[in-house]
């Protein structure tokens, strides 16, 4: 079987071979990602359930483990209702525009030293540019569905995303100054040393601002005024049903995983182990050494911690009022980032050890 596949593969022209390899790599990233998204919804229901002293889903499969599959099947068989007076084409394009960027950004995310689909030198810029396209999904959805609630939700979401993107961008400028590179792999490499070499320490305010802005960017609680059940029913996706609604849902959770991954790469040393810097003998212990050493498992563990924070926020904080969201973004976050960038510039120029003496 394997030989047969190899022989067929070698017949193909070279350009087609590269294409097949790239497509396989994309599938290898997107499939586990989609599985993570499905089980993130399960984790959300279980964790928030536990925090509110409930059980969460228990019926489908052992401990309710098949619940996300059941949800997906249900949504697939539901009718897609297109509202009267809606713009049909844009109505269908909107969810695609919202999930496309959330998946495309994974192309440059390094999972391990060599484990990255496209190792481009402007990786950070690429991620910023691609994720900024995601807002069109929200805008077009609200406008195309010909509904007041959807349009109001869109207005809020668009203003919020555009405002917080500025603070987020400034936080990323700090990372780029500290690491001296736009390549995500090199950003991680610049943090190697030990737990205290990671950029969370010299960039602490930017780290907090980045993560809070990321929560706002993904329209999650406590910044979920775009949905605001009590005011707008469900915000920009009120009119969506069935699979097109599910795609919006997938996009939201895929974005959560993406911004968590970015936070890990830029501030918490990506795949680097927190035990780095221990004597070399520790890492040569048969099984334990491999676990303690750098590797993709640390990247995944750190992402899970951030995802847990997302769920914890949702269970804990009351929703922000709209004008307070705007005030926080423009009058608090942006000035703080600018001041910290100036301080950081001085620190980088002075070669402050242990972070900036190598640059």
């Amino acid at each position: 079987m394997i030989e047969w596949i190899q022989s067929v593969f070698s017949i193909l022209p070279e350009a087609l071979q590269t294409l097949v390899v790239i497509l396989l790599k994309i599938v290898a990233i997107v499939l586990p990602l989609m599985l993570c998204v499905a089980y993130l919804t399960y984790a959300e229901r279980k964790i928030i359930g536990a925090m509110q002293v409930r059980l969460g889903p228990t019926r489908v499969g052992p401990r309710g483990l098949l619940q996300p599959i059941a949800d997906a099947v249900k949504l697939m068989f539901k009718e897609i209702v297109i509202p009267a007076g809606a713009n049909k084409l844009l109505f269908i394009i909107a969810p695609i525009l919202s999930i496309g960027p959330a998946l495309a950004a994974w192309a440059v995310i390094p999972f391990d030293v060599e484990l990255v689909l496209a190792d481009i030198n402007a990786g950070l810029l690429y991620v910023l540019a691609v994720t900024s396209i995601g807002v069109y999904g929200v805008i077009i959805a609200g406008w195309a569905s010909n509904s007041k609630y959807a349009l109001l939700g869109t207005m809020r979401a668009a203003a919020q995303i555009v405002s917080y993107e500025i603070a987020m961008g400034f936080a990323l400028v700090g990372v780029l100054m500290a690491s001296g590179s736009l390549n995500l792999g090199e950003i991680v490499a610049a943090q190697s040393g030990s737990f205290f070499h990671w950029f969370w320490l010299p960039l602490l305010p930017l780290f907090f601002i980045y993560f809070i802005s990321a929560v706002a960017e993904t329209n999650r609680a406590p910044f979920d005024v775009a949905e605001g059940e009590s005011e707008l029913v469900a915000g920009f996706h009120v009119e969506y049903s069935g699979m097109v609604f599910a795609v919006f849902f997938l996009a939201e959770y895929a974005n959560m995983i993406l911004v968590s991954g970015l936070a890990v790469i830029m501030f918490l040393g990506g795949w680097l182990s927190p035990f780095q810097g221990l004597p070399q003998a520790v890492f040569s212990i048969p099984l334990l050494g491999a676990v303690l050493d750098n590797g993709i498992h640390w990247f995944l563990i750190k992402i899970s911690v951030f995802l847990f924070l997302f769920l914890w926020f949702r269970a804990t904080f009351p929703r922000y009022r709209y004008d307070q969201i705007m005030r926080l973004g423009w009058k608090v976050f942006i000035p703080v980032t600018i001041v910290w960038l100036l301080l950081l510039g001085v620190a980088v120029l002075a070669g402050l050890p242990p972070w900036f003496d190598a640059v």
Partner: protein
Amino acid sequence: MGTEKIIFYIFAFIVVFGATMVISVRNPVKAALYLVLTFFASAAIWLLLEAEFLAIVLVLVYVGAVMVLFVFVVMMLDINVARLKEGFIRYLPLGIGVAVLMAVMMIMVVGPEYFGLDKIAAPERHGADYNNIREIGGILYTVYVYPFEIAAVILLVAIVAAIVLTLRRRPNTRQQRPEEQIAVKRGERVRMVKMSAEERK
């Protein structure tokens, strides 16, 4: 070279198609969305020129920020298309005149005798390790540092001017002052009263 040419023609076709739709489509929101498409396809063509930094920044700034605000504003406007079309025929000759004049001017400046392949050679191809961003940064902060700084100051002036234009204080509006809210003490808001229990009637 073959695939590159095909990719170029695909994106060039999208650019021309998008640009035509921007000026011909009736609905302003759709026109703005076609402009987004045009920007995106132009960014792809810039990528073919190995100008990856400029291409990504085009998407980041124009698609991700400027056009979002465009669509945002256009969506809220209730534009009467019929009134906009009034006098279309009456002004058509003048419009054609201006269009022809502009076309002639453009051909004079960017015609084949100035912009042909023999005048401006095809850019040199670089290897995969060539860093476009470093090159731009190097030239922007040395040779062109003053124009760059002046452009930044002009933009700052524009920002301040735009904010001043929208800044109007109406006397009766109420505003939230978070610093005062935080500074509030319990004694200012609540008065504790000590009294004995009243008898039930």
